[in-house]
């Protein structure tokens, strides 16, 4: 794949992750920071900060590890969303369906979209990449 496409892919993944982080930051300031268990609000803020860091890494650090870091963040976000829809919840917090609307659906679209792009980039950049070390004799 041409390097230009890889660069665009990294920018797209960064934008999607940043979008998910922005939603979490909005929800944090909307009222999630006021949830009785403070860990919930902190996790939303942490998600926003981690998303910013992951997005920057994707753009400036052309290393497969930055792709893996983004993928770990996306998976953690999706897992937290799922856990919050279980009877036990997460940090004493439970939520139903795709609430709040439209933030929940948008966040899922961003996170899943980022995951697809990141896995594609991993295949292209990592599985296909080999480091030239020496000319053969």
């Amino acid at each position, binding site marked *: 794949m041409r390097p230009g496409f890889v660069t665009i892919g990294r920018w797209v993944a960064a934008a999607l992750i940043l979008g998910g982080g922005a939603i979490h930051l909005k929800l944090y300031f909307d009222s999630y920071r*006021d949830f009785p268990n403070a860990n919930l609000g902190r996790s939303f803020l942490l998600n926003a900060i981690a998303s910013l860091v992951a997005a920057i890494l994707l753009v400036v650090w052309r290393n497969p590890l930055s792709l893996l870091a983004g993928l770990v963040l996306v998976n953690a976000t*999706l897992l937290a969303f799922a856990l919050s829809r279980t009877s036990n919840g997460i940090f004493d917090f439970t939520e*139903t369906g795709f609430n709040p609307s439209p933030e929940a659906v948008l966040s899922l679209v961003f996170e899943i979209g980022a995951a697809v792009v990141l896995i594609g980039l991993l295949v292209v950049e990592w599985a296909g990449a080999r480091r030239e070390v020496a000319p053969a004799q």
Partner: protein
Amino acid sequence: MYAAPHEIREAGVIRTDVVPGRQRLILIGVAAVITVLIAAFAVGRGVASDTGGGSSAAAGPTSSPPSGSGAAAVIQNFAFSPKSITVKVGDAVTWTNRDGTAHSVKSDDGSFVSQDLDPGQTFTATFKTPGTFAYVCGIHSSMTGTVVVQG
């Protein structure tokens, strides 16, 4: 010339991987499978936990426009306040959502159910029979409250 296990002779160049290409593909495959499973879990829980919030107003006979005196409650910081309200038969209770996100009011026995209340919106239920009515937020089940109706 000796070639290490992970070296590949190709077009006059020896290429070396820290992790062989095949192992990388396997690792990426594992990561992809885990991601798909987690994404499916997330979407699945979203669908499964959808209680149909947003359905319109009042299901039970006790939900109606206010008549006579009543009490007020607020929804704030993911909690109902006051948590327990005591009124008399015929009184109304009005909940106002002062949070920055949507909530709802849903009695355990289904006698009063609000639509999803966006920030600033209110819901009123009038209580015509004595008893104790427990309720929750239909979106956030950790939010609970009680209305005690005295005869």
